[in-house]
């Protein structure tokens, strides 16, 4: 679809996945110092696959996504290294006008807060139609017809009557549908969803997640789901990358991650969330708090909160150990974590 890209433009070291992030580093230069928001993140997603990027606020999960989309504010942000390859081409080396073509057509994104992501002074139909007018050069009438089709596709009731309504006239769930409609307008190959249901009620969340799954099935998109919600991840993800303090601390297929976590942070998280289907469980509380990006702990960023901590963790940054084909863990003591003997 994106014939403008010469196939040889990439560095050619990739594994050939649809979208690959490799050793990405992003920093923010602030008044009080340099915040290393992303510290060597590597992940990839293929067509039809769902990658969940799991992390808390400040883990770097959203900054990574913004960097992929090329919507990071520079400055204060700064890409300090790494590559983002889409179909083998490093996006970070492309000129802005070529990146703009990929944005929307190749990779699209939806955000947590649909109200602020939509322009309040234009009707929603006009905003969807604009995608077709700008990228496809369609006429006003054709673009509007396509907009109504898309609104139907994301199941906005009475799309034809509501195409001229403004964003504030829709409920939160409907606004999120409109944003999804805009993001899939140009049939992107990868969709990044940054906390798409966090602001929504649970019954609406279920509707939106079902819609996303259906759209993915129909178009074979690669989906990157960025979230802190272990429940949503368990429902839809194929594989998971867990982020903490700007690093990936664990990679695993979904079933294995929940069954046998190999990083103490993942394990702690899984034991700290209450479940709707269980009663009387003890909640394990991870002590302490997430790291301050301006003053990262030495060695492993998780060591001040970790029950498996040893001296090595304070002095040495743990590399991402490969455990099996698709599993890896950035913990010196992943074997102990797997066996469950905390020190």
């Amino acid at each position, binding site marked *: 679809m994106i014939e403008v890209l010469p196939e040889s433009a990439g560095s050619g070291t990739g594994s050939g996945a649809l979208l690959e992030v490799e050793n990405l580093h992003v920093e923010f230069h602030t*008044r009080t110092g340099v915040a290393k928001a992303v510290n060597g993140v590597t992940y990839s997603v293929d067509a039809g696959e769902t990658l969940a990027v799991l992390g808390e606020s400040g883990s770097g999960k959203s900054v990574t996504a913004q960097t992929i989309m090329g919507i990071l504010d520079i400055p204060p942000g700064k890409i300090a290294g790494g590559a983002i390859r889409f179909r083998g081409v490093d996006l970070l080396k492309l000129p802005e006008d070529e990146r703009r073509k990929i944005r929307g057509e190749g990779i699209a994104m939806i955000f947590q807060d649909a109200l602020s992501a939509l322009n309040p002074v234009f009707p929603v139909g006009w905003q969807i139609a604009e995608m077709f007018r700008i990228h496809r050069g369609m006429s006003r009438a054709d673009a509007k017809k396509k907009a109504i089709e898309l609104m139907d596709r994301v199941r906005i009731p009475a799309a034809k009557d509501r195409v001229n309504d403004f964003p504030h006239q829709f409920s939160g769930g409907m606004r999120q549908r409109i944003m999804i409609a805009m993001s899939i307008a140009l049939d992107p190959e990868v969709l990044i969803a940054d906390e798409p249901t966090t602001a929504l009620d649970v019954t609406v969340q279920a509707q939106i997640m079902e819609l996303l799954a259906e759209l993915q099935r129909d178009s074979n998109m690669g989906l990157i789901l960025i979230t802190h919600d272990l429940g949503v991840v368990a429902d839809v993800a194929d594989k998971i990358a867990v982020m903490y303090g700007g690093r990936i601390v664990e990679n695993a297929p979904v079933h294995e991650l929940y069954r046998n976590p190999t990083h103490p942070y993942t394990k702690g998280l899984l034991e700290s969330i209450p479940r709707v289907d269980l009663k009387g469980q003890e909640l394990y509380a991870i002590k302490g*708090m997430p*790291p*301050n990006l301006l*003053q990262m702990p030495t060695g492993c960023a998780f060591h*001040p909160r970790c029950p498996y901590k040893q001296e090595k963790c304070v002095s040495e940054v743990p590399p991402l150990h490969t455990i099996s084909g698709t599993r890896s863990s950035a913990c010196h003591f992943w074997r102990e974590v797997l066996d469950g003997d905390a020190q």
Partner: protein
Amino acid sequence: MSEANEKTRSLWHDTWDILKRRKIFWISLVLLVLFLVMAAFPTLFTHKDPEFAELARSMEPPSKDAWFGFDLQGRDVYARTIYGARTSIIVGTLATLGTVLLGGVAGVIAAYRGRWIDSLLSRVGEMFLGVPYVLGAIIILGTVAPVQSNPTKTMIMGVVIIVLAVLGWPVLMRIARSAVIQAKHQDYVQAARALGAGPFRIIFKHLLPNSLAPILVYSTITIGSYIGAEATLSLLGIGLRSPVISWGIAIADHTRYIRTGAHAMLFPAAFLSLCVLTFVMLGEAVRDALDPKLR
């Protein structure tokens, strides 16, 4: 995490930390101190009597023993410019104080009580805002407050101060009102109410400390603009007049002689501009430091 090196730090403390790193703050502070000293102790700068007139030296240009030259009446322009600082500072500060009192009280009442009191005060404020400033001043100074034949200096200044405050309070009311309304909807005010706190405690412990910042910034800038406004009114002949010594009067008295003896007008005008600028710069430096978006 960094338990040891982190001491208690209030938000004012943070603001000060930001302020002291800004050059513009220090420049305006130095100028402010200079003008304040000038206003309080003019004799530190000149030993000449600003009232002493020697008609023979009328409009004499600047020279070695009279740096700024002499004015129409043969008075020393330098001495009069120095003494003019006091008038400007007093008028600007007192008028601002009056504005803050009138507007602040009205704003807090409107925001705290809400309902019809808010509507009433807001509408009254809008009526005042609807009248152009100079027009309002002309009307009040020209008709409502006709000054008798032999006014004292205090009376002349008092009338101008009152007029400035009466015309200026609605803007401050709006600022105070919106700041208090914003603070009022914060959860900590609800929490205080849930604890059983009365209106006095809520206003003075919770609402005012959190509404002070914008009022402070606006007041600082207002001192500057009132100094300018006083000069404007004096220039139009409806503000201050002799025997008060003021930059505005000096400018007014010599506009006709700008070609033959510009010095008598330019020096007071320069001081006036610098003084207005000082307060505006200071206000903006404080505003930048208080702006949470820069945090």
